[in-house]
């Protein structure tokens, strides 16, 4: 399972693909998830990354891949834009 709910922690494991963005979005919005754990993930599709960026859950875990660990994760952890109120 690439997107796995473990209590209040959502674990992204292995390679997360385009379709996973949908289940990730649904889980983040409905099931009171407090944390997304990336330590077991090997790759993330752009749509998955985008969902994390847009929905802004707390993200933890150090993935093994150097790209994820050194470049993507820091970019995700950067203070996100505040969501604009009714434009």
């Amino acid at each position, binding site marked *: 399972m690439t997107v796995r709910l473990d209590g209040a922690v959502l674990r992204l494991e292995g390679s997360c693909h*385009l379709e996973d*963005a*949908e289940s*990730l*979005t649904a889980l983040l*919005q409905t099931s009171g998830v407090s944390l997304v754990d990336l330590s077991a993930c090997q*790759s*993330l*599709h*752009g*749509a998955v*990354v*985008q*969902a994390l*960026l*847009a*929905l802004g859950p707390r993200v933890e875990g150090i993935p093994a891949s150097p*790209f994820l660990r050194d*470049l*993507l994760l*820091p*970019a*995700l952890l*950067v203070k996100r*834009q505040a*969501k*604009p109120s*009714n*434009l």
Partner: protein
Amino acid sequence: MAQFLVEGRELVAEAARGLSALALRRDDAAAMEACFRALHTLKGSTGLFDLEAMGQLLHAAEDRLAALRDGQASTPGDIDALIEMVDQVDRWFDALERDGRLPADAGSIGQAAAHRIRDAGGAPVMAEEQPAQPSWRIPPDFDGLSGIAIRYVPRPDCYYFGDDPIAITAAIPQVTALRLSARVPWDSSEPYDPFTCNLVIEAVSAAGRAEVEAGFRLVADQVAFAELVPAAQAGSAGGGPARRTLRVDAARLDRLADLADDLVIAKGGLAELAAQAESLPGGHALGQALRLRQARLDRLAGDLHATVGRVRLVPLAPLFARFPRLVRDIARSLGKKAELVVEGGDVEVDKALVDALSDPLLHVLRNALDHGMEEASTRRRAGKAEAGSIRLAARVEGDQVVIEVADDGAGIDAATIRALAVKRGVLTQEDAARLDDVAAIDLIFAPGLSTAAAVTTLSGRGVGMDVVRSAAASLGGRVTVTSAAGRGTQVQFRLPVAMTLIQILVVACGEERYGLPLDAVVETARLAPGRVVPIRAGWAFQLRDQVLPLVGLGELVGTRRAALAESQRVVIAKVRGEPIAFAVDAFVDRLDIALRPMNGLLAHAPGMLGTTLLADGSVLMILDLAELVA
């Protein structure tokens, strides 16, 4: 601006170095090259900060240097004029640091320089070559990076077309920075659509442009590129293999150093716990296993601590580089002539040391010029060169750095100092008479003595040699002075190079605990009653074939005088080569600790090497046995 100030200073120093080299040898091509590079880069940066006057002056300097290089008619004063121009830029940096802008007369100075060039028929003002500007604003996080900047804005429907922008980016070689943002602000009034791409991917790659562009060829219409060149390249004059360097926020390094210290402390209790585990019934195997782990942890923590200590080490060169110009300025204002020779700029010390040394060294140099340096006529009569010479030199001796300021001036007359000390009420006549010459000269560090007999505009600032001495002490070192009347004076700082990890023995004297440096400790022992013999000055006892003096540690530290115990514990330490036994109430522990030098009120307390923080948060004093016994 802060970055500009830091790099600008380095560039000025580089230019000055190049000019000094050229002063010695006009045909030093490497120095000429380095000087040009520095001036040119500096000039380029001034454009970013609207410092027109500085830019004009630098341009004029460049032209003049070019004329020199091309062998056009050069006057003897050329190098001096160039040095003066570079000095002026350095002074402007002072103004920028102090006031945030150039002084009022900067504009006219810059104009004058520019006119002089035009009038002399010099090269026409070159159009500034600007590197191709990117069409978007490079994110500030990319400041200081070099390579290819990338801005990839995938089409909103790219996911439907099978594009994975993150995978594409991940496949680009040598990406050094990545920034993700939203093309259109996230709108929480609409349900989130995970399949419409809303990413903006900005990145920097250190690979070549062709390689980077190739990685994006399938989405080339959605990507823009730009060349990134960092604002100022501070290279070392004269080549040599470039060290890979990073600019790191000093506060972060301090935090890292503190963490390394804390780690050393935190692991401290483990040895004891391992021992406890071992002594539990059935705990032997566990205890052994813990000991092994603890030993490994010890090694790692020690390594980390040493490495962090080295990370904080920076060369003295940038600090030293400020002084030649200052010396020239001060000398000029005093109507004297003096040159500063600098050695050992490549010696590395803890960054905190560099920061703390700036003012004391400046004061010592001022003193050398103000009081030490004679007028030109006096020097001539004494057969010295008209221009005074001051040598600022640094060298490493073991784990200490020795910094000397030596001048060939008038020296310090012991008799004069003695008289002054008496006059100022620092010493009585008898005490002053009892001091030998060396001790008399050392009086210049006494508070109350350090303002000069003749108050000049410089010395009137109230920064005295006593402050210099306490500064040295607060850094865990000391400063001494030697002098020969008529010949010159040498002020010598001895300071620890870096944070030191030392092993200590913790002992108890009554309620108090103290740490003794383990490398001084030879042995610990328990003396049976009757072994201790009272002697004239205290006690002694026989250890194997030697008779050792015995002193109470508690007494030395001034806490108490106790009777000897039935089975007296003693620590035998080597003090100046001789073994002495110190009576203590208990041996508590052996620890690795990070020694922190004394500061503040305790900086002058004799007998203390420093302090350290224990695992329980209390402060332990580490004693300097040699000083205690003296």
